[in-house]
């Protein structure tokens, strides 16, 4: 009996927490397709707000995708070999490097953005280009890629594989490409999903780094929250959800597959 009450109480509390998280998200999805949010859903369902968002903010959406893909490319090319090197080399140097590249997770994005502005704000064409935001995103997402790959490397016998491939004549580069990368694939995939998800949603850095001509989706969102009617802001948020939820589902799926193994 007592267990029953305890269970019910906990269940209700969990339900409450879930509602706290789900209700606003649901509201924003509903508001995005409602003719008039103030009058409620009975005012009719429409895609006009979504269309309006596309008209106003299509550029930010494309820009975000572009930057996310660019960030992914850089973190792959730079981060995967580095993760391998850090794992293989080990020792104090590797620990120090890992600590440094992980710092951007501990330091608020605002501080990093400020630092980038102070250092590169004077380089006009760089400052005005997408690359400026890309640089910030790369710094912010790199640790996720490196750690994700290193975590997988720790579960496979890298030394043996390396020596095994070397024994039949593979050069270090061939070993890396033929044996290390394929076997680190789960970590690379998980890291990639994380990098893209974070880059698409990054605001703290981006808000400081953007210019009127380099606006990303979250920057546009902030703009719409401040200046657009609720329905438009909601429709815009809806588009963001549609972009990001498949990534989250994929991440959760990979995580579960990794656990069940």
């Amino acid at each position, binding site marked *: 009996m007592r267990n029953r009450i305890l269970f019910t109480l906990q269940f209700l509390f969990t339900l409450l927490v879930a509602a706290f998280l789900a209700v606003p998200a649901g509201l924003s999805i509903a508001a995005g397709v409602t003719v008039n949010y103030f009058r409620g859903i009975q005012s009719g369902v429409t895609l006009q707000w979504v269309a309006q968002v596309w008209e106003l903010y299509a550029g930010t959406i494309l820009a975000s995708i572009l930057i996310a893909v660019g960030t992914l490319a850089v973190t792959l090319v730079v981060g995967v070999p580095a993760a391998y090197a850090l794992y293989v080399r080990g020792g104090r140097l590797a620990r120090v490097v890992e600590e440094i590249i992980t710092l951007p997770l501990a330091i608020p994005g605002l501080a990093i953005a400020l630092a980038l502005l102070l250092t590169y704000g004077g380089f006009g064409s760089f400052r005005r280009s997408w690359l400026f935001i890309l640089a910030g995103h790369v710094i912010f997402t790199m640790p996720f890629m490196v750690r994700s790959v290193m975590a997988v490397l720790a579960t496979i016998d890298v030394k043996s594989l390396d020596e*095994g491939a*070397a024994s039949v*004549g593979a050069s270090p580069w061939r070993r890396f490409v033929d044996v290390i990368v394929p*076997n680190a694939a789960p970590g690379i995939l998980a890291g990639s999903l994380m990098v893209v998800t974070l880059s698409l949603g990054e605001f703290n850095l981006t808000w400081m780094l953007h210019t009127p001509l380099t606006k990303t989706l979250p920057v546009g969102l902030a703009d719409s929250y401040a200046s657009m009617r609720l329905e438009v802001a909601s429709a815009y948020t809806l588009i963001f959800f549609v972009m990001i939820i498949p990534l989250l589902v994929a991440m959760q799926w990979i995580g579960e597959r990794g656990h069940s193994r």
Partner: protein
Amino acid sequence: MNMMTRHGAALKIENCGKTFADGTCALARATLDIGQSETLVLLGPSGCGKTTLLRIVAGLETPDGGGRVLFDGKDLTRQPIEKRNVGMVFQSYALFPNMSVAENIGYGLKLRGLPKAERAAQVAELVALTNLGGLEDRRIDQLSGGQRQRVALARAVAIRPSVLLLDEPLTALDAALRERLRGELNDLLRKLGITAIYVTHDQAEAMELGDRIVVMRKGAIAQIGTPREIYFTPANRFVAEFVGAANIVEAPIEGGELILPGGRVPVAGPATMSRAVAMVRPETIAIADAATTGLAGIVDGVRFAGDRQRIIVRDAASLPLAVDAPNTIKVRTGERVGLSIPPDAIRLLPDEG
């Protein structure tokens, strides 16, 4: 291509030692010659330096300054493993989980730029040679331990290496499988006629597979010889005790005879010292009527082992003697028995104090 042709290089290991960065000496400077097509076994307990020596030959470790590794007279000391053309079977097998059985075996050939068709033909030949037929497309994690071992061997042999290096290749398997694969491995090594270095801590493997055995201890070579030499004429007490069962008896010598508490035993050859450390293998001692032998003792225990029995005899020597007798002899504990030992079965060892 025919895998059955004799191939492989003659190896020379010159003055190779290894001191690690933390100052531990894993291997004292050693010099060794390995003939073409010879199978050399490095035998010793863990930590004896056998794997370090193998890794120096492989190119996975660099020897301390002055050490050299020569393949057919060519100095390869500075070459990394991928430039040495060695085939290596790792203790963990180090198979690539991202490749199928056939891709694992053919990987070295692919690196050498062999056309696809030729590669497939050679892989097929190796698959047949190692009894892996039907498993070509399997993933590594779908194989049993014994199958993995064979894939590792096929991959190493595929590149027609100058020398085949095997690092405890059977250790990861259970006892019954180990014995069977030992036989298969032996047949294969003879068939291929390849130069091979085989590291193991298992004396049975060493005896069966080695043309010569290098017994190692604490980073140094204790003895080099054929399996028979190692077994019958161990150079020292360590080798005698590590390889096979041995009775080690310390006793005075007088007139070419060992003076034991239970009697006297003649030894062969010149025995000029006044005290000796002697080794006698249990199976060379025969149980006989106490009245007819110079040495006698009391049966202390009988351990029946099926194909034979081990009889422990006390009061014959300073320590109880182990005697391996045929399983048909009947003795009882407490019975007095005579022991006959042929003079040439007694091996006098240097006294190491």
